[in-house]
Structure formats: C-alpha cells, structure tokens
C-alpha cells in the first residue's frame, strides 16, 4: 500500500484524531493529534494495516515551537509497506502512553528516548535510564542541554594539548618582546627577523 | 626403589636389616627422589607450556613464542621467573588460609602420581603392586584443591568453576576407572610395571588392539582423562568465555602458576598412564620383557645401559605423542556445556565402559578356548588402526592442497 492509501484508511477509522498526510517531500507522515490515542491507533496499525514491526522511534526537540516530537517509523514485513506517525508533546512535561504493549521493540527504543530526551512513557514496564548513569543530570539530546562539569569527581572536559601550546607561545612571545624592548631600535629589526 | 637402596647398603658392606642408619638413608633418599620428581614435573609442565603455545601457534597459522632462546624454548623459564616475582595477591574478602593452601593440595595430588608412574624398564620410583589403584586414588586430591580454591576465593566465577570441576572430575573417575580395569583384567595385576610386562613391544601385542572392547576402553579412558585434567573440550571449570578464568580467577603470581603447572603436568600423567596401560609402555622391539623372561636384564655391560635408554626413549616418545594429541584436541574442539558433559559421562561413557569390561571378560573365555581368534582379532584391529592413520594423513595432505597451500613444515619457526 502507498502512504496515501494507508493514510486514507487511518483517516476513515479515526477521522479528526489523525492529522492530514504531510507533503511527501521526503517521507510522508501523519500526525496523531492527541497522544492518548496512540495505543488505539497503534493497535489498529498492527492489526488492520499489518504493521507488524516498529522499526524506529525517535524523539526530536524543537525549542522554538516548544515541542518534543516523537516519530514512529512503522514497517510491515507481511505487506512490505511503511508509514511514519508523529506525536507532538509539550516540551516542559513531555508524557505519552507507552506502545510497549503493542510492539515489544518499543521497550528499548522508548527507554532510550526517555533517557536522552526526558520523555515519560506512561505504562512502560521498565522505564530506567539506559545510556547515561542513573544519577546523571539532564537529558543530552535536548537542544538546551548543558553538560554537568563533573560526575563523581570525574571531569567531563579535558584541556586540549594545543591550548597548552598557545600558552607556551604567548609566554615566549612576551619574553621576546620584553628583551626586544631593552635592546636599541636598530637591533630590534634583527630580532624580529 | 627400596631394593635399590638395600643393594646400595649391601654394597657398602652392611646388612640393611640390622644396620642402624638404614631408616635415615631411606628418608634421605626419599627426600632426594621427591625433589627430583617435583622438579621433573615442574620442568615437564614448563616445557609443555612452551610446546603447547608453539603447537597452538602453528595450528592457528601463527608462529607462537619464538624470541627467547632457540625456537623460543626459554620462554617457559622466562614465564616461570616472571610468575615467581609477581605479587601474590590475596583478595581481602577471600578466606585467607584456604586461599593460600589450595594450590598445594593440587600440587600434592599431582606430584604423588609420579611415584607410581614408570619411566623405563627399571626407572620407577615405587613399583607398587596396587599402582593403578594408587594413581586413581591420589588424583582425587586435585579436586579438593580446586574446590578449596574456588570456595575460598569468594568470587562467583571461582565458585562456578569449582562446582563444575567437582561434578566433572568425580563423575569421570567412574568411566576412567572402569576403562583402566580392562588392562588390569587382561594382565591380572594392578602394578603398572606388571601391566607393561604383560604387553609386548609390537602394536598387535598392545592392549589397545587386543579386542574391540579394549579399543573402546582406550578411548573412554582418554576422554575421561581429558575431563579429569580439565582439558578442552572439558575445560568447563576454567572456561574463559563463560567463567572468566573459573576457579583460578582470583589467583596471581606463583599460586596461579601452580594451577597451570598441574594442568600441563597432568598431560604427562594422563599420557604416560595411557601409554602404560594400553600401548605397551617402554617395551623395546626385539627385547620383550615379560614375567617369564626379561631380555633386557639378560644383556650385559654397555648394552644394558643402551637398552635402558632405548626404553626411556620409547616410553617418552609414546607419551609425548599423546601429549601432542591432547594439545591438538584443545586447539580444534569447542567446549561442551555442563549438562552435556554430564550426559556424556552417564549416558555414554559409563554404560559403554561397563559393557566393555563384560565383553573383555567374555572375550578372555573365548580366546582361552580358541587361541587363534586372539591373534586374528589383534591383527585385524592393528591393520584397521594403521589404515585409519594413513587415510587420515592423506586427508590432511588433501586439505593443504584444497586451499592451494604448500606442504611446508620447516619455515618460519
């Protein structure tokens, strides 16, 4: 099925609750208007439309729109077609129902987005940090994320050796300048050369 | 050995029965021999560690250690020195006393075996009339050492290794013991030298080719010995990919090296025992030694020495051949799982070994009635074995040809 046909079926079933098919500039997608509908729509996709696999789940932070977007890439191994669903959440307290009960692969994918973007997936059986340490502060993939300076006394930044060389050069130059100031102007030219 | 000492004392003009220093001489010589035996074991194990790495290297299309000394031969000395000087770490959470003492248990269980192992026609430390029984008994000490090391380490990996090892060694002692009973049955003695004397120098006189059951018994013994020595495919107690290093995970330095000394030294023990029990031991062709007539003893002067050396060489050659096979197996086969290991023991080896003992007992009755059958069976089995070896060799050469390589044994050592 093409994306239009899939969207037509979705629209027929859910009507207003599913957004229009966005212009297929690269990958066409449709918006799920309310996050609460996700499980119902997911079950419909899995059951009626044959989307047996959730191949990707990504989150995108849009500070300008004050939104966090969760993108579901669906694929059907039985019918060999794909579709993209999106949900837009409030950036301050992003929360949406977990699709783990529909597709098992959502388990780890949702944990990853929870960890890196701070999105709460309600009803997820095992919502823990996955990449970052348990006591890490912040969610790294947020656009306004600031790394903490140190973690358990481990510095998160390291001085580049090149910076050391900058200092070294500066010091040598100053010393040379100091020497050059003492010597007469005629010899100054030689020093510079 | 006692007879030898007695003859020494007599040579000095004393009667060992009445001489006051006899017991002291005995103690002194015992100490001397223990020293020699332990050193023999240690040096053999060291050399095997080098040999194993060279063999592994060659088999894996690598070179192996070749820097220290000719062909890298001094590598094992360098390793020994390194291990001796390494820090001997004892984990704080470990049971300090048991942790320290465990390697010695293994060493004792391993070194004691050498007392009953023959090396040549005359060279055996104690010619016991219960030699085989003694060997089976003292090897069990090793398992005590392993369990102690695993338990006292207070590490879960070590504990896993130790428990696996206990299950494995104790299980496999049954088929190993039963398989060793067949030469005992055939020769009518438990003495290792006696069993060798009951065989002859030629392959068809060896017990391995005596009848189908003893042929099977040889393999049962060999498999069980691999399991008892923690060699692949039975290296479950120290399975690297599963248990990090098994029961010796927490050990370091010299104590760690004891474990490996035992492992490599055990290769000599299992191979020497196989040679003794099934492959005619040190018997020299054309100079058969039987209970009835000792051809070597009948020689005189320098010929005695030569014959003695020849018997040492033959015994060593056969043993080293099996040591090589043990290494070769290790670098070919995957490891079996712990339940499969148990299955194999109790479902395959134990029944087959019992059946083999029964068969041999029956076969002895048959050949007693029809002696010609004995010879026919021996010749057929020997010929079969030879044909198998030749086919195997041809297959090996074919392998080299198949991938477009050349036969090249000598280069890049």
């Amino acid at each position, binding site marked *: 099925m093409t994306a239009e046909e899939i969207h037509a079926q979705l629209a027929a079933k859910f009507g207003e609750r599913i957004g229009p098919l966005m212009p297929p*500039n*690269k*990958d066409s997608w449709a918006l799920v208007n309310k996050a609460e509908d996700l499980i119902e729509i997911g079950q419909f996709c899995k059951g009626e439309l044959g989307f047996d*696999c*959730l*191949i*990707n789940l*990504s989150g*995108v932070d849009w500070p300008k729109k004050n939104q966090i977007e969760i*993108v579901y*890439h669906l694929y059907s*191994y039985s019918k*060999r077609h794909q579709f*993209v669903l999106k949900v837009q959440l409030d950036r301050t307290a992003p929360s949406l129902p977990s699709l783990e*009960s529909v597709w*098992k*692969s959502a*388990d*780890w*994918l949702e944990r*990853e987005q929870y960890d*890196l973007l701070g999105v*709460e997936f309600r009803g997820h*059986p*095992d*919502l*823990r940090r996955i*990449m*970052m340490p*348990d*006591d890490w502060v912040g969610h*790294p*993939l947020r656009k306004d*994320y600031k790394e903490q300076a140190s973690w358990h006394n481990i510095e998160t930044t390291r001085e580049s050796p090149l910076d050391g060389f900058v200092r070294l050069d500066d010091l040598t130059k100053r010393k040379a300048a100091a020497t050059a100031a003492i010597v007469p102007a005629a010899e100054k030219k030689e020093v510079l050369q | 050995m006692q007879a030898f000492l007695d003859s020494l004392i007599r040579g000095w003009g004393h009667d060992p029965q009445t001489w006051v220093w006899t017991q002291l001489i005995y103690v002194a010589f015992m100490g001397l021999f223990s020293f020699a035996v332990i050193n023999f074991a240690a040096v053999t194990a060291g050399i095997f560690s080098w040999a194993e790495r060279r063999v*592994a290297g060659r*088999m*894996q*299309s*690598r070179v192996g250690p070749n820097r220290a000394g000719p062909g890298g031969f001094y590598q094992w000395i360098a390793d020994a020195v390194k291990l001796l000087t390494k820090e001997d770490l004892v984990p704080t959470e470990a049971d300090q006393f048991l942790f320290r003492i465990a390697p010695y248990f293994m060493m004792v269980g391993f070194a004691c075996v050498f007392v009953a192992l023959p090396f040549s026609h005359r060279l055996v430390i104690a010619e016991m009339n219960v030699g085989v029984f003694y060997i089976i008994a003292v090897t069990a000490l090793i398992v005590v050492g392993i369990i102690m090391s695993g338990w006292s380490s207070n590490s*879960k990996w070590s504990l896993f290794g130790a*428990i*696996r090892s206990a299950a494995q060694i104790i299980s496999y002692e049954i088929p190993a013991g039963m398989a060793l009973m067949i030469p005992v049955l055939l020769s009518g003695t438990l003495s290792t030298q006696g069993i060798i004397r009951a065989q002859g120098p030629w392959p068809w006189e060896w017990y391995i080719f005596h009848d189908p059951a003893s042929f099977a018994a040889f393999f049962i013994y060999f498999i069980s010995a691999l399991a008892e020595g923690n060699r*692949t*495919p039975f290296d479950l107690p120290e*399975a690297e*990919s*599963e*248990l*990090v290093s098994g029961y010796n995970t927490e050990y370091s330095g010299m104590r760690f090296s004891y474990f490996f000394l035992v492992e490599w030294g055990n290769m000599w023990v299992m191979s020497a025992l196989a040679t003794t029990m099934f492959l005619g031991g040190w018997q020299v062709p054309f100079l058969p030694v039987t209970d009835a007539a000792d051809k070597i003893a009948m020689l005189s002067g320098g010929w005695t020495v030569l014959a003695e050396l020849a018997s040492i060489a033959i015994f060593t050659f056969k043993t080293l051949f099996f040591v090589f096979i043990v290494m070769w197996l290790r*670098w*070919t*086969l*995957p*490891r*079996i*799982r*712990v339940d*499969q290991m148990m299955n194999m023991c109790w479902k395959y080896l134990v029944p087959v070994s019992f059946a083999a003992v029964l068969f041999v007992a029956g076969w002895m009755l048959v050949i007693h009635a029809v002696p010609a059958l004995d010879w026919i069976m021996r010749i057929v089995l020997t010929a079969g074995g030879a044909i198998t070896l030749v086919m195997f060799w041809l297959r090996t050469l074919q392998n080299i040809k*198949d*991938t477009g390589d050349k036969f090249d044994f000598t280069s890049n050592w």
Partner: protein
Amino acid sequence: MSEARRGTGPEPTMDMTNKEVMKRIEYTGDMLLNMGPQHPSTHGVINFLVQTDGEVMKRAIPEVGYLHRSLEKIAEKCTYNGYMPYTDRIDYIAAMFANQGWAMAIERLLDVKVPRRAEYCRVIACELNRISSHLVAVGTMSMDIGAVTPFPYALREREFINDLLEELCGARLTYNYLRIGGVAFDLPESYGDKVLTFVDHFEKILVEFNRLITYNEIFVQRLANLAPISPELAIEYCLVGPNLRGSGVKFDVRRDIPYSIYPELQFDIPVGRGELGVTGDCWDRFWVRVAEMRESCRILRQCIAQIPEGETMAKMPRKIKVPEGVEASVRIESARGDMQYYVIGGGENAYRCKVRTGSFTAMGIIDPLSRGLMVADLVALIASLDVVAPEIDR
C-alpha cells in the same frame, strides 16, 4: 512475557535505578551474577545482570551505555562531511555501512544522484566489509563456544580484506571511504583482479571453515535448538539482518527496499531452515552468516565484472547545506542488519540524527530469551545475535 515481568516487584517508576533492579534479584534468594562490563565474551563493554539458580539462569538483564559517546548529539554539531568519520565509530567492525547510511541519508535530503561507478565502488567496499564483519562474528562466536582455532582463521581472512580496503581507502578499520555524493577514491589499478583472487581463495577457505567448526558435533550440540526465536517474535522485537533471517524471515533490505545497484545484482538471501534443530536457533543464525559470506562473494564477482567507467563523485557544493526541517529516513542492510538513519536537516549541520542499529534492538530480546537457559548458553546467545557494543550505545 511482559506480564510475568510486571509481576515481579513493585511498579516501575520514573526514578528506578539499576541498583534497585539488582536488589530485587537479591531479594529472591537467587545468585546475582554481574557478567561484565569486563568479561571475555560480552563483545565490548556490556553488563548483564544474571539471576541464576546454579547453572540455570532465571533471567539476564542487559545493562548498556558503557560506550555511549553521544554520536547522535555530535551529528548536531558537525558539518555533514565532518560527521562521516564519526559514523565509522558507530560500528567499527562494519564501518562502511554506517558511512553508506549517512551518505545516502544526506543524498536523499539533497536529491543527489550518485554516479554509477561510485555506486559500484560502494557496493564492492561494502560487500568486502560485510565478509570481514561476518568473519569476526563467526570467529568470535566459535571462540565463545570454546573453539579457539576458527577465530584466528577467520581473522586471517579478514586481514586479506583489511589489506584490500586499506589499499582502497587507506584505513583498515575506520574507513571514512564514502563521501556525500560518491566515494573518496576510485578503485586502484588492478583492484578487481586482487578482489577476484581473494574471492577465489576465500571460497575454498569457507569450505574448510565449515568442516572445522560449522558442522562440528559439539558445536552443533551447543547451538542447535538453543534459544530459538520464532519469526513472529523476531519481528515483534524488531530483530534485523542475519538475526531476522536466521528466524526464517526472508527479508533483506538490499532486495526488499532496494537501494544503490543491488536490484541489478543476482544474489540469494539465505534464511535459517532449522537444518539441525529448530528454525531460528543459534546455529541457524551462525549458518546464515556463513552463507551470506558466500553470497557476498557472488556479488563481488558480479560487481567486478560489471563496473562501468566514469566519475566517482557527483557535483557537490563544497559546503553542504540542507534546508531546516526537511527530513529523510534511509534503511540500509548493514552487516548487523537493517540500519536506519533518520536525519532532519538544519542548515550546515543536521538538526537531528537518529541511528537505529541492529545491535540495539537485538539487545532487547536477550532478557525474554534468556529465561531457563544456562550460563554457558547466554554466552552463545549473545554471540549469535552478533551485537557490537558501540553500535548499541552509539
């Protein structure tokens, strides 16, 4: 399965930590075994919290993240070309595919047509890389089972491929060979002959490899019937690539969502058939990889025969710019399976780049599969899924 999982312990909360999971295991009275992060067979730095009762495992919970290097965040800071070397690090055993995924994603964003010769160069490099990656997979797998010798044999063949790739692009591991719009270098002189020589040699070695390990009885006994994954379960957990095909699903991105020049090439898709056990067991996954190496050899022969003359680089602006908000997702068949790049353009650097890798989703299935296996089987299961730690964590 998840029902049983919900039944153990209290309801999860937002701030549940690993320590609480560990405690929960300890309360049951079973042994808690920390397999990893430093363990010989975890293939990188992964931790498994193993709940065991003697040799039999009740559960193994993977804990990842030890190799997390924020590669997705770095994509938001780098130029498009500058991110190419980073993609090498996503999967260092099969770096060429990560390169290709990134290049294809940006080409899709910009609607760039890659010259045909460049496509052939890419496929040749990728298929060589696929063989070398599968060699590591089967080699380490046999080593995890305890057979050490197949591993050096596999690595020896891999060295030949490394030499070939080194000649092609100058690096042995992190190739950085592909560029957006083409490839960095054309094939060197008489490269085709060298590849063909290798392929001829390698096919013989593959036969020998099968004789040494694939059909070895101990090996088969260890792997056949072990941790079978049904096709439904494999799809449910989004297993991809050889793991999915090992379960008998005949799906290959190269054939089913065609890209590059794969539609023009003849090759089979080996699937697990339960030859020695149940379909989808560990042995099937091993065998699929061995069979795929043979198919890659076929592809290489065809590519060498068909490669056209011409340009290897499309006309690209020196500074690549993508309008903000335009997004594309690209799926490629990596050595570890379907690798998806989801990229949103944002001027001179990507606004968001999400890399969905095969290893990441494969880790999710270890927990449900591990129940009732033995500790030694867990090692075989991890090896058969062929996970690579940096690809999980990125």
